[in-house]
């Protein structure tokens, strides 16, 4: 389950945050508390409505014991404007 956020129309950022969270069996609230952000931020990240800062991206990656690239996928040359 990947969420997609268009950055400029021809580029987009997908993420696998929801899938990873569900794999870990935790709620949005729990993840938000661990990352010290609001639950709405987690919701927006999962829906692909919001791009995280590099610091938050690192925090997320560390929380799931993985790399940023494993969670966030940057795509170029995609004309789909979501």
């Amino acid at each position: 389950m990947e969420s997609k956020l268009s950055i400029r129309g021809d580029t987009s950022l997908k993420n696998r945050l929801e899938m990873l969270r569900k794999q870990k069996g935790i709620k949005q609230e729990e993840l938000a508390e661990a990352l010290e952000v609001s639950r709405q931020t987690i919701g927006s990240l999962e829906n692909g409505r919001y791009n995280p800062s590099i610091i938050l991206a690192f925090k997320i990656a560390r929380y799931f014991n993985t790399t940023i690239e494993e969670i966030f996928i940057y795509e170029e040359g995609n004309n789909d404007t979501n």
Partner: protein
Amino acid sequence: MIQINGKVRNYILVGISAGIIVGCLFAVKLYGRDTWVIVSLTIALLMFGSSVDNILEHFSIKESIEAKKQLEIEMKDERNSFIREKAGSKTNLYMLYLNTAITLILSFMGVELWMICLFGFLILAQGILSISLYNYYDNRY
């Protein structure tokens, strides 16, 4: 020295400022619109507004530790900061349109030139401030 907590201090300030406002209103009737009365009234109104705002904030924030922690998270949250900045930026833009519209309306209404110049200066000041701050943050980051 007596220690007064923020909540009590705000209530005292509301009382004092309300007293000054009432006093100023009487002074206007007695002495007319003297400069000192207007200045006192403005300061009292600002004090009153600020204190009432702080009191309302106290009411809206629950005293529990969890609520305080949650509030801290909400304040530090990067998405909330982004939303605040975006809202502020849009507000600034719309205020510029509104100021321009008011200036135009005033100029068509035949208002005195100095008033139109004052509104024009506000628009100019907004532009200068915007450019200055842009340059400041451009150098900083």
